[in-house]
Structures are given as C-alpha cells and as structure tokens.
C-alpha cells in the first residue's frame, strides 16, 4: 500500500467518523407562543354548508384593505390565527354572490363573537308569511269594499 493510498484511506475513515457528528449538530428548536384564533362556520339559511367559499379578513386598523384570505373546507369551516391587533376584526364569507359578514371583538379579555343574523325557525317564518298574507288580504278586501261602495253610489 503506497503512502497516497494510506492517506486516502485515513481521510475516508475520518470523514466516516465525523459525519454523524455533523448531522447531530442540526439541533431542533421550538418557539411556542399563545395566540388568539378564530373558528368560522359558514352556512346558508337552508342549513347547507358554504363549502369552499372564500373568506376575506379585515383587521381593526384597516377595514378597507384585506388583511388576509382563506377558503372554507367542505363543511364550511375555517380556522386561523389572528394578528396582534386588538379591536373589531371583520370576516366576510362569500360564494357566487351570496355571503355574509361577521365581526369579532378582540381585546385583552377573551374575544366576544357577534353573529351577523340570527337564524329564524320555520315557525317564526310561517308567522311572518301569515302576517304579510293577512296584510295583503286586508288590503285586497279594503280595495274591493271601496270599489263596491263606489259602484253602489254610482
């Protein structure tokens, strides 16, 4: 074995010995911090989820330009972490011209959620339809009575 060959073998052995040490020197670091997150659930008033709807997020200090965007999942849900700004965050969920906006107050205390609109039960809706129908019927009868009165006087 020549001196060059010995030197090469020695270099290879040294490299083999030190390589694991080099790999182990990539230590893992973790930084953990708490943050306020928002969980959205968007659905139509028929109960159907707004699947894959687009979400636009507006920060409290700039309610005109979007702070961030997202897309809901198949169930109409989306979770994300807010920035450090405190105040009223706004979230608009929209899909094919339909959508709604929700505002969330974020401050030093726990966030308070305010919903866009309360979902009405079918009972409430039927009462409303009945009331409007009653109003229309009254209008119709009133107009008919006036007409009959005019015809009679003529």
């Amino acid at each position: 074995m020549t001196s060059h060959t010995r030197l090469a073998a020695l270099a290879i052995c040294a490299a083999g010995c030190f390589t694991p040490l080099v790999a182990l020197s990539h230590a893992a670091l973790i930084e953990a911090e708490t943050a306020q997150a928002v969980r959205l659930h968007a659905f139509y008033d028929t109960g159907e989820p707004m699947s894959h709807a687009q979400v636009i997020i507006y920060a409290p200090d700039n309610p005109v330009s979007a702070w961030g965007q997202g897309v809901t999942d198949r169930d109409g849900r989306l979770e994300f972490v807010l920035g450090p700004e405190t105040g009223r965050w706004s979230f608009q969920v929209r899909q094919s011209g339909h959508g709604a906006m929700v505002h969330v107050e974020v401050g030093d205390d726990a966030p308070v959620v305010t919903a866009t609109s309360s979902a009405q039960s079918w009972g409430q809706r039927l009462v409303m339809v009945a009331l409007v129908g009653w109003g229309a019927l009254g209008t119709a009868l009133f107009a008919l009575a006036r007409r009959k009165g005019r015809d009679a006087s003529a």
Partner: protein
Amino acid sequence: MHLPDGIVPVEMALAGYACTAGLVAVALHRIKARPDPQAEIPRVAMLTTVFFAASLVAVPVPPTTVHLMLAGLMGVMLGWFAVPAIMVGLFLQAMLFGHGGLTTLGLNGMILCLPALLAFGLWRQIGGRWPDLAAFGAGAGAVVVAVAIFATIVLTGLPAELDARAERAAVQVFALAHLPLALAEGVIVLVLLRVLRRIEPRLLPHG
C-alpha cells in the same frame, strides 16, 4: 337569488338605487295613466304575498339550493304593477328573512323587475296568439334573464383581493343550477294561466 349587504361596492349599490328609482317612477307613471288603477290593487296585494313567500320555497339542485323567484309570473299577471309589488316584496324579504340586503335593495330590484317587465312585454306581444308558448317563455325566460343580470353584477363588482377565477366558477355552477328552476317556473306560469283561462278568464291580462 338576492344580493346581500357588503357584496358589491358602494358605487354599484347607489347606481342600483338610482336605476330602480327611475324604473319605479316610470312604472308608477304608467299605472297612474290607466283608467282605473285601484281596480288592480286586490290582485297586486295577493300576488305580492305570493312573491314574498316564494323565496322560502327552497328547491335542492345539487350541489346547491335555489328558490322560487316568480318574476315572470309577476310580470305576466301584473304588468307595470309588478315593479312596485316586487319592490315591496323584496323590502319585506330583506327585513323579515334577511334575504338580500337593504343597501342592495336597488340592485335586487333591477335583478327581478327587469325580467318581470320583459315577461310582461313577451306576454303582450304573443300572449293573445300563442298563450301557452308566451306563458312558458315568460316564466322560464325571466329566470334566465334574472340569473344573467345577477351574475353580471356579481362578476363586475368583485373585489381585487378575491380569487376571481374561483368566484367565476362558483357563479357558473350557480347559474347552471337555475336551469331546472327556469323550466319549473315556465311550467308554473303555463299551468296557472291555463287554469285561469278555464275558471276565471277575467283575471287574465288578456281575459
């Protein structure tokens, strides 16, 4: 198919109010010119209720759900009266059900009043000669025109931060889902006018 608040830019909402105000003014002028406008009030009142309640009738058309519009029926049955009737119905729907917004009331008025007037025009042109064809065309055509106006407004008013391609695809799916509704509304108007022709022809616009 109602535009809610916050979906379109403020300028578009204001333009919608301006256009609808003009349309309502023209309609009221035409109504006033009729010999006895008050005679129509009972029919207008009842059909306004039908229009108001129709938005609650949801028809599942996978992957979405559509609801009855009845713009064609309103146009054929009420003529120019359809404009104030639809506006009252839209206002009540927005206030009581949250269907559509108050800021977008003008645009929603355009979306439904224009097809209603087109249906009225179609009925007036060919309703006397081909009543079935005119009735079906008015009912179905009104839905198609309303969807076209709705899609145009939505796509024109897209905010820059929105993914336009995804929204366009969603609008296309939404428009396709309305094709069965167009057929259904065409049949509704056709059947209703046939029944009226048989039992009470005086209620027909050409009765």
